């Protein structure tokens, strides 16, 4: 799979992962999946993806925020700090509503925020932008 752009998708819903995998593979991406925040961080180090798609509410908690700030602030993930993150959630809120206190909570805004179900053209466009950036 050399040469393909690699997408790490972190989401605890295996059906969501399954359909996104088909979509991404048909679009010529290489997809790595993780079903929890912890697994996501492991795979980040193992696979060094070009972009991360991160679900916010995993295991009924807001684990995605934790993953986001771990990548941006913890020294062990420093090499991956600039990997673009696309955050996804089924809760409909604008990034401003979502992250009004981002700074005081020690988080940074994700590069993109999309609601689920994903609008496929927008999702693909966000990925394209992200990998170009990388």
């Amino acid at each position: 799979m050399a040469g393909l752009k690699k997408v790490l998708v972190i989401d605890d819903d295996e059906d969501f992962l399954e359909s996104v995998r088909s979509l991404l593979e048909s679009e010529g991406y290489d997809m790595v999946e993780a079903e929890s925040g912890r697994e996501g961080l492991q795979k980040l180090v193992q696979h060094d993806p070009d972009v991360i798609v991160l679900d916010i509410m995993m295991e009924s908690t807001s684990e995605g925020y934790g993953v986001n700030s771990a990548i941006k602030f913890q020294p062990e993930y420093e090499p991956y700090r600039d990997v673009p993150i696309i955050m996804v959630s089924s809760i409909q809120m604008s990034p401003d509503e979502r992250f009004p206190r981002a700074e005081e909570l020690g988080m940074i805004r994700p590069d993109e925020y999309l609601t689920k179900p994903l609008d496929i053209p927008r999702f693909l466009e966000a990925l394209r932008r992200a990998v170009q950036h990388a």
Partner: protein
Amino acid sequence: MDESPHGEMPGVPRRLDPHPPRIVVIDDDYAMRLSCRQILAKSGYQVETFEDGAHGLDSILTTKPDLVVVDLKMPGISGMEVISRVKEIDPLIVIVVITGYPTIGSAVDAIKSGAFDFLPKPFTPDELRLVAKRALERRRLLLESSRLEFEREFLKRRFVTFVSHQLKTPLVAIHQYLEVLERMEDAPDTATKRREWHQRCLKRTDGLLAIIDDWLTLSEIETSDLARRRVSVNLGEILSGILDVYEELAAESDVELTLDLAEDPLLVRGDPNCVSVLFDNLIVNAIKYNRAGGDVRVSGERVGGEVIVAVSDTGVGIPEKYRTFLFDEFFRVGGDAARKTGGTGLGLPICKRIVSELGGKIEVESEEGVGSTFKVWLPVYRDDAGLQAEEEAAARSSDIGVGASK
């Protein structure tokens, strides 16, 4: 250290906040500022004084004091203006106005616009201390109720978000399948995918229906009379009925079911449907979260006025850090095994609510790698004669109690 500042002022409630109450005094009269500072500082308060509204407000903005004492008649920014600015800065800051007798009418206006009390000049040190004490008590109440209100609102909003997330998740998965399928209409392996995803979609709709059913059960237990019936419920009948229903599931999961009741009939007082839903949930969990070759053991015994039923499994156990959340709505234990086992996250909350409606309790004991035991305490059933005899006995013993205490 807890004692210090309020030692001489009994009645001022001790605050959780370790700082002594902070008071800002704004008055253009030097002698007044000095005496207010001395009187209040002597009561252990932290006092700052300012000669005009502008400086006072600057300090209030940054230090957010508990109480502001302000003279109504000052050059520059007026006392009334200070009141309305302080209310803008923080409506929970309590304000007391100082006023000369000729301006008592404006003191009334000040109270209308948000001041808590007024103190006519001249006043004695005790009068100032008393007003300050009452104002700080007011402050404490305001803080307390605002904190409670905030917590309530926060929980309510978080809960609504939470429930909608749980309901949306399966729909999102289904929607995503359908949309990706539509997009990949012409891809070579779409026919295979279509069949597979069709099955997965059906599974997700079933899951969603189960969540909604459980959600309804939960609110029914809370709002209807479902759990208010109090009749004799034969546990042996109910438990063996449930075990029969799940015989097949247990065989598929390679789990052995046993029922062990210390006496038969074992009667509890409650509603048969609720009791049935309760143990149905516990037994299904014990089968689902078990290991191949494991056991589910259901045992019951009567201890005094209660019946204790234990449902034990030989599964992976529940890590200690999760146990306190186990009975919360939509909580699911983390980890692969738990997640792969379908569940609505409402089974145990339903159990807990039923048990508490029936006047019992539920607890879990668990050891990682060994298994978990859910123990339920329910009130034993007594027929009317038994109940009457017991009430009489209780009455007699309370008579004795009263007599003895005399």
